[in-house]
């Protein structure tokens, strides 16, 4: 019955090789990509995990015992959780105020508030450490002005910096939730006589609750993973991410650094599971059919005024931070010696660091976009087992704390066969695989728009797989490729937490240089370098916006540095 059809024409071995490759190229690519992901993502993470259990005498739990015995260690966990929780709570309130006003508030306020809330996206998170030190530090502008004796190197400082840094994340998610609530529900409640307080309490917040929870969890994860702010402002207070760095640079204790990393991953994993499995699909989509544009109604003063006070205060801090950084790059010391100088801007070390960063970021962007595009294609069009696992792997770099991957890279690539430590490649690869997610997602969403029939049509017209890939798929996916490229470029420019483990003395990146100068109190240099980074990132963002307008794909809706 089963008759195997035999091709009557003998076309020789070259034809059969080509036919084989043509038929299986997707799977061949998939195999290669699996290998690459395994080496550059799974292996470093596994190395950290192993290192936390594996001492000089083999398998041991001593490091974990040590962690939970010495208060210096376990307090860093407790502090980190406190930092995460307090930032989360504050940002839930502040983000809600911003989102409420920009979605339901007075028309004239909406746009400026939105811009202010999103402004921190244009800068690395640790910009706020520098600005807060400039404003409230021992020699701070405001401290001097009002004769405060306020210490910014404290809990307050760290929390404030974190809140400002992650304001956009919280704002975007909450605004999205509030926008998805049907205004006529709130109107119905008002129609039945509910006051605005009552509506917020019993309609808006309960309906938004699942979305708010998701926003809160994400803020929590991003905050505890953040390295720069607690490292610069933490003073003597131990936090997990900076301590991991100290463990390696100060003590050379890779085992303990691994333990700290694993402890830092745990909450991330818990929240990832919550986010993806428990909360998945939860939420109220209350807009059914066409959303009715409703008559704008005034928010009552009892709500408007407190909300405005909160948003104005926070907004003012955001704007002042940017101003102070800009001014700080051109004067000797803000508020102390306001003479105009160009020293900070033309500083050779700073410019070398910027130059290095651009070089690394361009390379990371280029390779990241290639790997991301290929992954997206293979995941969408391949028919092999484990596509879902591959997608998870590709996205994991984004979810895991940068310090952990940084530690993983120095442990994993310190020895042959993968001896990369000390080279520029370890930094590039690290950034490629950490920021892969956006390129992959951009590619996947682009491929969703392309009918598989287009590829079949090309094959029908005589194209083999490589021709289809280069002449049809790549051109169509080009916008996704560029989006992945620029996004990786931007995040690499700003990234600190991972690369700080990987740079060698004498090869500074901009972010590392900013961190080091901020630590030394060289605020002018730190500010000037930050301004340059912001300038470069802003150009990238502008290009992304143009792409988004042309193609409908918006990557600026994602955050993570």
């Amino acid at each position, binding site marked *: *019955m*089963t*008759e195997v*059809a*035999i*091709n*009557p*024409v003998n076309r020789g071995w070259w034809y059969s090789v080509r*036919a084989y490759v*043509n*038929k299986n190229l997707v799977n061949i690519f998939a195999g290669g990509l699996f290998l690459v992901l395994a080496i550059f993502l799974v292996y470093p993470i596994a190395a950290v995990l192993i290192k936390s259990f594996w001492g000089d005498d083999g398998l041991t739990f001593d490091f974990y015992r040590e962690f939970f015995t010495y208060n210096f260690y376990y307090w860093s966990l407790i502090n980190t959780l406190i930092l995460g929780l307090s930032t989360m709570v504050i940002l839930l309130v502040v983000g809600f105020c911003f989102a409420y006003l920009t979605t339901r508030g007075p028309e004239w306020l909406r746009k400026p508030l939105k811009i202010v809330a999103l402004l921190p996206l244009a800068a690395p998170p640790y910009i706020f450490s520098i600005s807060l030190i400039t404003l409230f530090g021992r020699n701070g502008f405001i401290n001097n002005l009002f004769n405060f004796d306020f210490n910014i190197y404290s809990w307050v400082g760290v929390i404030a910096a974190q809140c400002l840094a992650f304001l956009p994340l919280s704002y975007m998610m909450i605004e999205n939730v509030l926008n998805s609530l049907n205004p006529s529900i709130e109107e119905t409640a008002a129609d039945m006589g509910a006051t605005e307080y009552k509506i917020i309490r019993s309609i808006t917040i309960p309906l938004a609750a699942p979305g708010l929870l998701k926003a809160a969890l994400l803020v929590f994860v991003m905050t505890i993973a953040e390295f720069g702010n607690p490292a610069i402002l933490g003073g003597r207070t131990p936090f997990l991410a900076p301590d991991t760095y100290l463990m390696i640079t100060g003590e050379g204790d890779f085992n303990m650094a691994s333990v700290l990393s694993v402890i830092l991953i745990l909450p991330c994993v818990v929240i990832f599971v919550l986010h993806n499995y428990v909360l998945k699909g939860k939420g109220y989509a209350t807009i059914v059919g066409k959303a009715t544009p409703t008559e704008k109604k005034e928010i009552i003063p009892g709500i408007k005024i407190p909300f405005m006070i909160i948003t104005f205060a926070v907004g003012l801090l955001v704007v002042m931070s940017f101003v102070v950084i800009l001014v700080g790059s051109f004067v000797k010391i803000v508020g102390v010696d306001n003479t105009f100088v160009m020293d900070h801007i033309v500083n050779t070390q700073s410019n070398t660091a910027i130059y290095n960063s651009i070089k690394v970021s361009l390379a990371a962007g280029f390779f990241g976009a290639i790997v991301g595009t290929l992954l997206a294609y293979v995941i969408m069009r391949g028919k092999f087992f484990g596509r879902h696992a591959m997608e998870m792997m590709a996205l994991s770099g984004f979810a895991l704390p940068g310090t952990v991957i940084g530690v993983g890279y120095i442990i994993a690539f310190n020895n042959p066969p993968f001896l990369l430590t000390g080279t520029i490649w370890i930094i590039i690869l690290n950034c490629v695989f950490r920021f892969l997610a956006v390129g992959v997602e951009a590619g996947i969403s682009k491929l969703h728009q*392309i*009918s598989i*029939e*287009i590829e*079949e*049509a*090309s*094959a*029908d*017209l*005589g*194209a*083999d797989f490589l*021709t289809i890939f280069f002449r*049809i798929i790549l*051109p*169509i996916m080009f916008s996704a490729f560029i989006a992945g490229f620029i996004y990786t470029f931007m995040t690499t420019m700003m990234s600190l937490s991972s690369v700080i483990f990987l740079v060698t003395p004498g090869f500074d990146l901009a972010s590392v240089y900013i961190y080091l100068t901020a630590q030394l109190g060289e605020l002018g240099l730190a500010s000037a370098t930050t301004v340059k980074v912001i300038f470069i990132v802003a150009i990238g963002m502008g290009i992304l916006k143009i792409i988004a307008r042309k193609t409908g794909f918006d990557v600026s809706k994602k955050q993570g540095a």
Partner: protein
Amino acid sequence: MENRRSPMLELVDIHKSFGDVEVLKGISSSIEKGELLTFVGPSGCGKTTLLRIVGGFTPATSGRVILDGQDISSLPPNMRNTKMVFQSYALFPHMNVRKNIAFGLTLKKWSKTEINKRVDEMLELVHMEGLGERHIDQISGGQQQRVALARALALGPKVLLLDEPLSNLDANLRVVMREEIRKIQEQIGITTIFVTHDQYEAMSISDRLLVLKDGVIQQIGSPVEIYEKPANEFIAGFVGYVNILNGKINERANGSNTFKISTTYGDIEIDSEREDIGDGDEILVVVRPESLSLKKPNSAQKLNGIKGTVLTHMYAGNHSKYSVKVGDKNIVVDQHNPKDSPRYQHNDTVELLIPRNAHILKRQ
């Protein structure tokens, strides 16, 4: 069909399973050169799968596809001389009309002048002269359809495959494009397979139809054969309305082609050359509404009919539609309406005349 040439395309016992589900259960058929054959059937019948097997996009589980005498079963789409127009048209969004049409030619490494000449011919063929530089999103759905057709025809395939090409167009345009496709097909005489789920589309465009259901060929035949001589109840009900009467062969006079049939509603006679039906067989009499006619009952005249009562009469100008109750059955009759022709009202008793050439089927 007198001069038997070898067919352009032959399908030999094609089977296809997806996992445990067998979607094609042994399809064999052939298409003559220049013929337009339609694969038609309800959704899920396997018609698109069969087309994709012909095009090389889906491998058959077993069976062979023979194109112009050559077994192409194992060739990938790009090595087959069949070209497909996809349901979504699958035009390349980053190329203009000309580049889309030229795509296959550039892969074949045609020279620039040859390509330009060919593309111009194709644009003329599909009436798109002067629109070559347009971008794909700057032309209408019907024009996109034309470009897809031109792109497939540019390479001069031996067989053209059309996968529900009209399903994305609105109703009026569908009729226009249907006629257009048929005209182009006849003009260049290309052997074509057309897939659709729309019976009327299939009837009006095809030389022959291949009706599929549950992965089995129900009937292959010309539109007239499908309509007038359906091979089974499914086909009978597939196009248009059909009345079906249960009956039994009483007697087939020796050597004659007259069947005496008894039904629960009365005895009738039908002339047929069917050899596979004999005395005692349970059969179905299949009659279209327009083949029936109504008469006033007249005992003096022996007519080939059965008695019934008019339930409803719908006057629609050129014809009248009657619903006539015969026993427990409602029979639909379309009566032509010349001026002053007799009309019947609710509750009138009528004689329902069965044409002697009515189609009969063996009951399954």
